[in-house]
């Protein structure tokens, strides 16, 4: 089954990004295809290349990038939401790309399911 995911909150502050990640991993392990994760609202902060959590903490941004590389997941950061919050190409983490909201609507159309994680 083809699954799309929407993440509405930033890393660390809310659990939304963690829940979305764990869900995505489980879906991929079950043989489903996670075609796209769209980051909207504060979710765009997940695409920041500059985060540096304490050493014993999980690396939220990096693990999204690794998952995307391993399973060909399209990680899309909404351009309008990102500009408003200071995420641009210059501080965009590896594995993410910046694009428009149409990519979210498209994820709703082209996937069998769209699952939303937020606050």
């Amino acid at each position: 089954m083809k699954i799309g995911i929407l993440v509405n909150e930033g890393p660390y502050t809310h659990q939304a990004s963690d829940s979305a990640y764990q869900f995505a991993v489980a879906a991929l392990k079950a043989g489903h295809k996670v075609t796209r994760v769209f980051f909207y609202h504060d979710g765009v902060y997940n695409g920041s290349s500059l985060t540096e959590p304490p050493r014993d903490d999980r690396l939220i941004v990096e693990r999204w990038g690794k998952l995307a590389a391993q399973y060909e997941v399209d990680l899309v950061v909404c351009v309008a939401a990102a500009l408003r919050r200071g995420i641009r190409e210059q501080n965009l983490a590896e594995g993410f790309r910046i694009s428009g909201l149409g990519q979210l609507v498209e994820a709703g159309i082209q996937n069998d399911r769209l699952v939303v994680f937020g606050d």
Partner: protein
Amino acid sequence: MLHTVNKSPFASPTLTQCVGHLTDGAAVLLIEDAVVGATEGTASGALLAKCLKTHPVYVLRPDLMARGIGEGRLVKGVQCVDYAGFVTLVTEHDAVQSWL
């Protein structure tokens, strides 16, 4: 429709609203802070016990463990699932509505 709720019912009326909007074939999955609402001896527990007569109710086990709540303290009939079970629920229902 699979309805997910992620907020504690003690901090938000979202669970009550979700339960008020269930139709035939709908299921409820509690994740994140919402899992505390399935404990026995609470108003939300009573709400879910009633809900269980017509709709299945699930709780995400990793979130339950994170909050130190043993499965034995859940309202009878509430089922625990892990993330793989979450995925199965998503695929078994025709759509997902996240109550944020």
